[in-house]
């Protein structure tokens, strides 16, 4: 066999670095996807007996190997008795491990999860006499359904009857109509209270494996699952439901539980406002730079500078936003228009408007550069043709140049949005909040509250991961949030890549 002439070791190192980079990327995405999606899966519950005879029920978690042996983390819930919902157990100490079908995990409004058994049901404090396990579950399901209907009715009542009257009362001056409104309000409130009293009827009696009993008002139950008894489709259903609740609910328990809806809303609104600001100005600046300005040394200098601003750290834009928008413009606005509320600032503190302006400034170079690239790619004879036919410059721009550069502008916008969605550092200076359950859009005039603070997915990751008390509980949530953010940004970037490819293909066909 003839020995082939190799390329030497360096070629293999180069090839290896491609492989390593891809490997890292895949590992990162797999980690995010795996942990983020697993968070919603109703994992099995186990009942464990240790060598000292003690027993507990828990959901097993990760393992750690050390010199002493293997330890496993269990999520035991039941914080009111155990102090902490987490327990590290040496695997060697486990004597028996069973998976009883009747183990339930209850997500509660307070105290976190409960893990144990359903021992019975109470109605108005009287225990129901149901011995059969299956019958008890049907009864429980029935009651949960009833509760959900009552809750819906109550919320509707609040939204449609109580709140409009409260608002009307605040605005109304006339004594007679005020009295009428007050009567109506009292009646509506009484109705709400009656519904609430009906909701408090049922209680579920829970018993932990250690023998502690607890009569929990059914109203406190957010979700109740028997994962060991669930079939695969049921588990999938539960998975979907939890994922949906994660997307649609607000955070609970100091951000360590619940969903991220306000953060999603804040991120989207912020990016939307930013796009509205950056699109016209970025495009106009690019058109000016490429089509109108005299192409001399100065323009070249400006072009290089604008290009370089894309490489300036985002935190610097944050500092600029804080100094100019928040303290400078915001402070003056407060003095002129909101002086009655001083010293508590209205616009003189970080808020949605200032954050979107800062991000707009940050992404302006991206849009300008992308648009300019698109404009420069249009052959000159297109412009010359239009001008030769007698079109004015405006007409040439509107009819010829801008339509041809549209995909480039779109690409620039998408890249800008993708960059803005992932940027957190400047937001920390100009208005992101740890917790802002009130979204900046509501039914109150002027509907869009630009001065309000907002939540942001990226900041949520930082805050929950690093500032929450219970990192173990927060970590799955952070994974899920990070996955969401990465997905959004990847989709945006892929769209931009696709557009750019499309654009190149189209203009490649044009004769130069």
């Amino acid at each position, binding site marked *: 066999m003839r020995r082939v002439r190799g390329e030497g070791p360096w070629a293999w190192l180069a090839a290896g670095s*491609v492989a390593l980079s891809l490997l890292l990327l895949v590992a990162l995405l797999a980690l995010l996807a795996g942990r983020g999606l697993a968070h919603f899966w109703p994992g099995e519950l186990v009942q464990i007996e240790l060598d000292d005879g003690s027993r507990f029920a828990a959901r097993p978690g990760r393992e750690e190997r050390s010199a002493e042996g293997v330890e496993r983390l269990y999520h035991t819930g039941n914080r009111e008795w155990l102090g902490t919902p987490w327990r590290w157990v040496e695997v060697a100490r486990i004597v028996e491990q069973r998976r009883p079908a009747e183990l339930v995990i209850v997500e509660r409004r307070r105290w976190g999860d409960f893990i144990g058994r359903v021992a019975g049901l109470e109605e108005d404090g009287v225990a129901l006499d149901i011995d059969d396990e299956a019958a008890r579950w049907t009864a429980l399901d029935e009651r949960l359904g009833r509760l959900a209907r009552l809750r819906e009715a109550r919320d509707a009542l609040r939204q449609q009857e109580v709140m409009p009257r409260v608002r009307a009362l605040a605005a109304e001056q006339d004594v007679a109509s005020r009295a009428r409104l007050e009567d109506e309000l009292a009646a509506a409130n009484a109705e709400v209270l009656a519904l609430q009293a009906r909701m408090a009827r049922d209680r579920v009696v829970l018993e932990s494996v250690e023998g502690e009993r607890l009569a929990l008002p059914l109203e406190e139950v957010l979700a109740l699952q028997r994962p060991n008894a669930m079939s695969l489709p049921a588990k999938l259903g539960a998975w979907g439901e939890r994922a949906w609740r994660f997307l649609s609910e607000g955070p609970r328990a100091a951000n360590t539980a619940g969903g991220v809806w306000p953060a999603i809303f804040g991120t989207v609104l912020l990016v939307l406002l930013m796009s509205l600001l950056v699109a016209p100005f970025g495009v106009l600046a690019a058109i000016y730079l490429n089509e109108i300005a005299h192409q001399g040394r100065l323009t070249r200098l400006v072009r290089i500078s604008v290009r370089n601003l894309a490489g300036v750290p*985002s935190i610097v834009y944050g500092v600029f936003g804080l100094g100019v928008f928040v303290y400078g413009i915001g402070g003056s606005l407060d003095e002129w228009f909101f002086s009655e509320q001083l010293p508590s600032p209205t616009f003189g503190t970080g808020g949605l408007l200032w954050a979107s302006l800062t991000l707009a400034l940050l992404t302006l170079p991206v849009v300008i550069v992308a648009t300019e690239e698109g404009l420069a790619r249009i052959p000159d004879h297109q412009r010359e043709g239009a001008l030769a036919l007698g079109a004015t410059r405006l007409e040439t721009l509107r009819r010829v140049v801008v339509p041809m550069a549209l995909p480039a502008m779109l690409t620039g916008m998408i890249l800008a949005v993708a960059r803005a969605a992932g940027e957190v550092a400047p937001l920390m200076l100009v208005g992101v909040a740890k917790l802002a359950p009130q979204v900046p859009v509501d039914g109150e005039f002027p509907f869009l509250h630009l001065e309000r603070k907002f939540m942001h997915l990226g900041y949520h990751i930082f805050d929950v991961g690093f500032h929450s008390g219970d990192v173990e509980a927060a970590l799955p949530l952070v994974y899920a949030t990070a996955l969401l953010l990465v997905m959004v940004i*990847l989709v945006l970037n892929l769209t931009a890549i696709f557009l750019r490819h499309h654009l190149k293909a189209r203009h490649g066909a044009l004769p130069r």
Partner: protein
Amino acid sequence: MTDHAASLRQRLRFIRDRLATALISACGIGVIGAVLAIGVFLAVEVAPLFVAPEVREQSTDGAPLPALASLPTDSLSAAGEQQQWQADGRELVVFQRTSSGLELAGRVEAVPPSRRITALAALQGGRALLIGDDGGGVQRWVTLADQDLPVPAGHYQALGSAPIRQLIALPDRQALALNEANQLGLYQAISGLRWQGQAPSGEALGWDDQGDLWWGTAEAASRLEIDAEHAEVSWRSVWLPQHYEGHAAPQQRWQTSVSDSRDEPRYGLAPLAWGTLKAAAYALLVAIPLALGAAVHTACFMSAGLRTRIKPTLELMEALPGVVLGFIAGLVLAPWVERHLPGVLALLLVLPLGMLSGGALWACCSARWRQRLPLSWAGLWLMPWLALLAALALWLSPSLERWWFDGDMRSWLALQLGLDYASRNAMIVGLAMGLAVMPTIYALAEDALSGVPKSLAEGAAAMGATRWQALWKVVLPAASPGIFAALMIGAGRAVGETMIVLMATGNTAVMTASPFDGLRSLSANIAIELPEAALGGTHYRLLFLSALLLFVFTFCVNTLAEVVRGRLRRRYQRLGGPT
């Protein structure tokens, strides 16, 4: 008639055109101006830091003297927080304040043999005192927590040569010194003599309820306006080691989160600048080999079909938000590396060896296998091989630790090499930020390499060079400016990255080069401290100064890169390349 209408329409068109052009120009100039104003604004905010302090006499037009709080009359003694000081010739007599009263702690010679102490003043906070002598010299001594006697903390520039008559302590650890020649000097504890001039006639009378110092005689007094808001900061004091209160020697410290005004704020930017550069250096250490290797392989060896897929994929990594990488690094990678330290360090050796052994094995394979797994696809088929080796190294990690590091590598590091291991450290930052910077460098370097006219490499190949030889001797030199630009832009990104450094380091402002120590970077420091800094204060302006430094650094680096890239593009055009 129709002619008239047509010409009117024509004129309207031109007016509209003019208007639109003017509008676009105004918008464009405005936007570009606004964007470029960032640097100017930062500089304007920073400028007051470096305005020279000034002491001015403010005439009060014969207004009556307000009620004044008197100054200490005895200029030869001063009272500190825990100690009381008395001047006695050359010596400083130190009394310790105890529950039962004053207790003599000792005597210490404070001024050179030929001189004697003529004035004392305790600075704000009571942990430092100024000593003036009869030769015009002023020096500062600081108390230490564990010692009875204070230690000297530096001689300041002397105030003339006449004896110091009086030292008057001011807020912000400043003091006014007055000598027998009626010269007045403004001293600051850290930055020393900041202003000197002729004292107004008369003498210091006392403080009014606004905290202003009055000067003159009972008949004709005036207010002294001391304009020294940022006197504790000078260009030198920010960068050089300073002797802070409570330390026996000069230190480089950044410590502003002082709970009360008795603690001296420490405004040394050097540890932060060091942290920034250290983080960037470790990140580049990871990113450069990976990025350049990947760029070389993609540009010169990879099959064209694969390249159109791999290049966007790797470039897509650039879009991964810093906060996600920071979270992975800080909460997942850091604890994990801490547990598997030997395995992770072994990876540094195993991975390159794995790549090489992959190549060696490939050369030993039969021709059919070589055809099936060509070098042009090695970027893909090396992946499982490397993953296998990495898993093996990690699996062996506990055994490695037992065999070589006595069962615990971290204590081994501390004992044998004297290295502390902080869980969130420069190595973690290097890994995470390396991953963030790598796509930037990769994309630019790949563009530079693939932009080199094909004729060059083909010529080399025709002369019998292997692809690697052609690359090393011909393509790489041609593309080297582009690669340089890529490295510059990568460095700019690494220096400015905030969230990753914020989350993956302990944010401790220490100045060590060890990869196992934490760090605090300028950018992370801004993110942490600026929301709480008082508007317009020294701290606030120093944070603006760090932002300005980041801005200037990245702007210069990027400009350099841009200029180099522009030259390169023209060179390729001369060489008759595709672009």
